[in-house]
């Protein structure tokens, strides 16, 4: 009886404007170990978006619940279970790695909650495994590298060496690169956790390609770029990269070893639109000269998407909320943005040059648009 009364009073309170209970958003992300900086960027960007809104997203009071998955799929699943089933959280986001997403996402959507990916988007969830409660705000994994292939082709290169770690994301990266490059590609696979690439440098020099593509996120990317410079290859053989290998933190850590590289991206710090400028200004005001990465930008966009949907519907009304999400009615920092058939982004891709910045640190400068409003190759396989 007491319970019933309490429930009734909560119901009464929540229907009164201004007294509504805050909508909880569950952020599961990786904060420990070498990739901890990525999770930190994700968390801080979402928190920043909420702070900018005065504790609200889309005019609705929200509360962030953040937990570290430790890059362990089992832990991620445990946290999701607590968020969704015990705390009644309907909106989850923040996972950095595909293998954590693989364990978490199916369970979240099966329990009627929404998962909005701010980073990882593996192919097994993009095609036949798509779900109406699963949205991706970042990109499908393959798209990152397709843009880079297109860039290398547009620069007139015919012969490339492509390097990536010998695991699924690495193989997908090279496959994505080859899809639009269409030239001759020699593939070199590196080991997971490899920090010394001297042997690969020698192979690159021996192969003498016109361009080098490599996919090494985080610390691996830092090591690779430094050693590329030390081997004297920087400036001799041009390099084109996709964004995970040249995020802001990596550029900060490699110094001038990054200067002269070309990269492809869906967003860059110098984008000339109001949403992007507002984001960059807010970040600078809060975090000073701490590098902004595209991980933060995607998380910020995710928060804006959540806000746009919350202003139209409550997540408890799943159908209305889903419709509101699909509309993607928010000002993306990357300019135009919409969802494809599999609820993955349709967006444009740009080429950037890495040049020496005024403070001696390298910075990315946006050049041409490479691909205009494209989705991903798995969208056709998705039946919703």
């Amino acid at each position, binding site marked *: 009886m007491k319970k019933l009364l309490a429930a009734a009073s909560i119901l009464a309170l929540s229907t009164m404007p201004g007294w509504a209970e805050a909508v909880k958003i569950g952020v599961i992300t990786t904060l420990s170990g070498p990739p901890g900086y990525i999770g930190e960027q994700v968390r801080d960007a979402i928190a920043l978006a909420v702070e900018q809104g005065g504790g609200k997203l889309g005019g609705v009071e929200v509360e962030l619940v953040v937990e570290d998955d430790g890059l*362990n799929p089992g832990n991620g699943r445990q946290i999701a279970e607590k968020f969704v089933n015990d705390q009644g959280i309907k909106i989850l986001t923040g996972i950095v790695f595909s293998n954590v997403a693989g364990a978490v996402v*199916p369970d979240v959507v099966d329990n009627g909650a929404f998962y909005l990916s701010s980073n990882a988007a593996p192919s097994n969830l993009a095609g036949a495994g798509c779900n109406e409660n699963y949205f991706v705000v970042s990109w499908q994994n393959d798209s990152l590298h397709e843009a880079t292939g297109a860039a290398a082709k547009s620069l007139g290169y015919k012969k490339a060496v492509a390097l990536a770690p010998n695991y699924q994301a690495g193989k997908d990266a090279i496959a994505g690169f080859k899809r639009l490059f269409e030239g001759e590609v020699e593939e070199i696979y590196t080991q997971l956790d490899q920090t010394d690439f001297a042997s690969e440098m020698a192979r690159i020099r021996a192969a003498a390609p016109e361009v080098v593509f490599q996919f090494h996120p985080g610390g691996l990317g830092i090591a690779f770029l430094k050693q590329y410079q030390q081997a004297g290859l920087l400036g001799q053989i041009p390099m084109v990269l996709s964004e995970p290998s040249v995020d802001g933190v990596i550029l900060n850590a490699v110094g001038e070893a990054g200067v002269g590289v070309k990269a492809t991206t869906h967003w860059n710090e110098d984008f000339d639109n109001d949403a992007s400028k507002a984001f960059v200004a807010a970040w600078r005001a809060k975090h000073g000269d701490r590098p902004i990465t595209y991980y933060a930008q995607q998380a910020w966009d995710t928060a804006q998407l959540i806000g746009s949907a919350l202003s139209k519907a409550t997540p408890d009304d799943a159908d209305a909320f889903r419709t509101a999400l699909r509309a993607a009615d928010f000002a993306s920092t990357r300019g135009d943005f919409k969802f494809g058939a599999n609820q993955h982004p349709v967006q444009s891709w740009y080429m950037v040059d890495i040049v020496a910045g005024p403070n001696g640190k390298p910075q990315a400068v946006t050049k041409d648009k490479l691909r205009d409003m494209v989705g991903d190759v798995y969208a056709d396989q998705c039946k919703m």
Partner: protein
Amino acid sequence: MPSPDARNLARRIGLAVLVVALLAVPMFADSSSLSLVTRILIYSIAAASLNFVLGYGGMISLGHAAFFGIGGYVVGMLFVHHADATPLMGFIPGSNQLLVTVPAAVVVSGLLALIIGALSLRTGGVQFIMITLAFAQMIFFFFVSLKAYGGEDGIIVRRTNEFLGLNMRDRVTLYYVMLGFWAVFMLALWRVVHSSFGTVLRGMKQNERRMAALGYAPYRYKLYAFVLSGMGAGLSGALMANFLRFASPDMLHWTKSAALMTMVILGGVGSFLGPIWGTAAYLVLETWLAAQTEYWQLWLGLILLAVVLGTRGGINAGMARLAALMMRGRG
């Protein structure tokens, strides 16, 4: 001092209380606690299996993730081939029946343990630790580069395996099924530990030469134990893949072997209930600390350090000592 019989009786009563408590868990646990207890049950099967070779047999294996992971992968791969309706390796049909996949996982991990054990047991001590690690690492790298089964991304098992027509999507049902497997496993393990085989194994840990002189071939006995232990870890992995509905190279990573070993040491090496307490303590700590602070690993590290420096023989030290006394009383 109470007689061994009386203590044995006390222990059985203790076990009975534990079983009743476990049966009652779904009545008062919320969903995430239920899931936590389920994970504890599943991991404790692997920890108890590791303890069987480590605590009773004196074989320090840092490669048990291999068996745990293979168990998971058997379930995952059979599911993939069931979903695609294509045979595995051209002639093995896929399956989504728990009563097919779990025994298959146990058999495959047992065979793997036979091969790894047969080679590794030619060494001892630190070299045994490292060679078991080496084999597990090879299997880890093999699955990471196995593109057909998701590589690093792993296999999503979209539906938990079917079992006796039960609704396996229901968490409580799933919990009772896992509890059933756990109880059967623990009962079987109890019988093995207290059989003449178990006695010989413990004897070898204490004095291998004497046991050899008594006519027991140490290599063969240790190998049997290693295979049984691998089968247990494989069972645990198969159940975990069903519970998480996911199998990935993460299950094969050496840190998983280290985590299992931590559970065993935390609980108390060489005691029957130790690994169960250790698993519970480790997972509860990990889950609870992570919910409190993002720097939870600092506290976990401090607690592990405090447990090792502050107690001898883990949380279950008292119980473990009691158990050791009893074993000596019997042997």
